[in-house]
């Protein structure tokens, strides 16, 4: 493969005419390409320095170098299982959290649709009782999917809606309950504590719940996503990431340092505003897209 060719390049390459000399300009360009993915200046600098150590003064192709980096990213992001953890018996309970506008409600709709199509009976919990028309938004999705929804009054306690949803899932033998929450910033201590309360409350009808706490990250986000992953993991015990809005020109490279620091697996990616625009996370595909113009299409 190309990868092993690059890794096995040796001093003889100096005498080859093709390729580019690895010197400051090349390394600067590489650094720029890496930073643009939002992986952060730290990781980008480490990768650049690593390339400098191995290849400085030799001739290589930028594409080959990027290919080895892709392979490294892929290896790092490959997870044992990107599957949802399901309850051994009784309903599986999924809690969905994240900052304002990241794509929680839409991701829930996509997930519910997916699970319904796989033959599960799904009930949604409209746990965002704060934002204007958040309940209506999720209700419309539930109608389109044809699944049940539990709602509370505006401004009512989100924990009680979450409880009612999970209780209904138990009483009526649903397979999956997915609970929406209002967007919040990880720095808002009291709102983060509310997530802990929701967690505890849904553990009453189903002691093993929640089986998943999915953090929805906007792929457009930069380095603040690291702080989001930290804050939400601490407050809500996240078990996985949904990386939304990957259909845009943003790369979502920030999941690389997040994965390094928190070992949170990316489970799904969002690829649009429609109900079917969600895919299971695929490390090779993601890595491939990191340095290309659009998903899967090399530059």
């Amino acid at each position: 493969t190309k990868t092993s060719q690059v890794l096995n390049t040796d001093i003889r390459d100096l005498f080859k005419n093709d390729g580019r000399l690895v010197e400051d300009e090349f390394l600067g360009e590489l650094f720029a390409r890496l930073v643009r993915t939002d992986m952060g200046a730290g990781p980008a600098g480490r990768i650049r320095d690593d390339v400098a150590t191995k290849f400085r003064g030799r001739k290589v192709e930028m594409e080959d170098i990027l290919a080895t980096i892709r392979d490294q990213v892929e290896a790092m992001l490959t997870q044992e299982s990107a599957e949802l953890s399901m309850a051994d018996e009784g309903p599986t309970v999924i809690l969905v959290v994240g900052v304002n506008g990241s794509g929680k409600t839409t991701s829930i709709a996509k997930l519910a649709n997916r699970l319904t199509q796989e033959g599960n009976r799904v009930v949604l919990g409209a746990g965002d009782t704060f934002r204007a028309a958040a309940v209506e938004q999720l209700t419309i999705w539930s109608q389109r999917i044809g699944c049940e929804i539990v709602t509370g009054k505006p401004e009512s306690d989100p924990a009680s809606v979450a409880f009612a949803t999970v209780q209904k899932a138990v009483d009526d033998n649903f397979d999956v309950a997915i609970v929406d929450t209002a967007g919040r910033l990880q720095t808002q201590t009291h709102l983060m504590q509310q997530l802990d309360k929701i967690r505890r409350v849904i553990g009453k009808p189903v002691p093993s719940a929640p089986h998943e706490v999915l953090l929805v990250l906007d792929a457009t986000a930069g380095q603040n996503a690291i702080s989001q992953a930290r804050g939400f993991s601490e407050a809500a015990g996240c078990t996985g990431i949904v990386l939304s809005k990957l259909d845009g020109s943003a790369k979502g490279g920030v999941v690389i340092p997040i994965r390094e620091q928190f070992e949170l697996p990316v489970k799904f990616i969002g690829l649009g505003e429609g109900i079917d625009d969600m895919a299971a996370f695929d490390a090779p595909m993601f890595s491939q897209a990191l340095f290309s113009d659009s998903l899967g299409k090399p530059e």
Partner: protein
Amino acid sequence: MFESLSDGLQSAFKSLRGKGKLTEANMRDGLKLVEQSMLEADVSYSVVQSFMQHVTEKATGRRVLMSLRPGEELVKIVYDELVEILGPVDSSLHLKSDGITVIMMCGLQGSGKTTTCGKLSQLLKEENIKPLLVAADLQRPAAIEQLRVIGRQLDVPVYAEDGASDPVKVCQAGVKQAQQEGARVVILDTAGRLAIDKELMDQLARIDKRVKPDQVYLVVDGMTGQDAVNSAGAFNEALELDGVVMTKLDGDARGGALLSVKHVTGVPIKFIGTGEHFDALEPFRPEGMTGRILQMGDMVAAAREA
């Protein structure tokens, strides 16, 4: 991050001590740290590059004032430059003295457009100016209802057509409605869209062309990363923006994307959003934002200790 930046700056500034002039060589380490700090704040790579070049040119050969240490001098140059780039301040909505002023909000999905429509209405109401909101997002489920709820909460009229499919017509009808109701400002809440979505960008350009809003504001999420240059550039190309609002700055995002947006659009930054409530809108202040992007309070302190 901050620990190392602070430590790093101290040692970088130490090597500057006692030198009479700033040179490329004696500033190198300090500038590297500034560069890294800006990247960590999500300023786009290309924007950081041109900024660093600019600052280096500006600073090179500058005599260090007796009252300042070399490190402080460098920090001051960086700070002043950023303040200048992010300015000038213009938080005016440029309302017409007579007739209706139409303001259009646009931006990526979930950036905070609809909420900011509410905040602007609140601002106008405080000035005894009557606004009318137009529900031109026909895309997102319950987007119309969201605007209606906001209208009810603020006691501001909302023009909406359930089941409509052409936002251009809705906007035109909304402006007519404003004339009948005697509203002075019309705020158009458009659907979120990706800058690379040609069809939806064309739709936005069509609204722009047919409804001719007086002010077009791009609403940018304060947490945005490197892609800000691409998206802001595309919106500006399609619409000729008049201003920018950056939202969600009540958290710990450093908001460096604002520098990228300013760099590619050149339009004034109008307001920052600092919360979900309608009063959480502040006129933009370049000094505050510069301090935030650079964690400057800390950097100034670091320079002083060196």
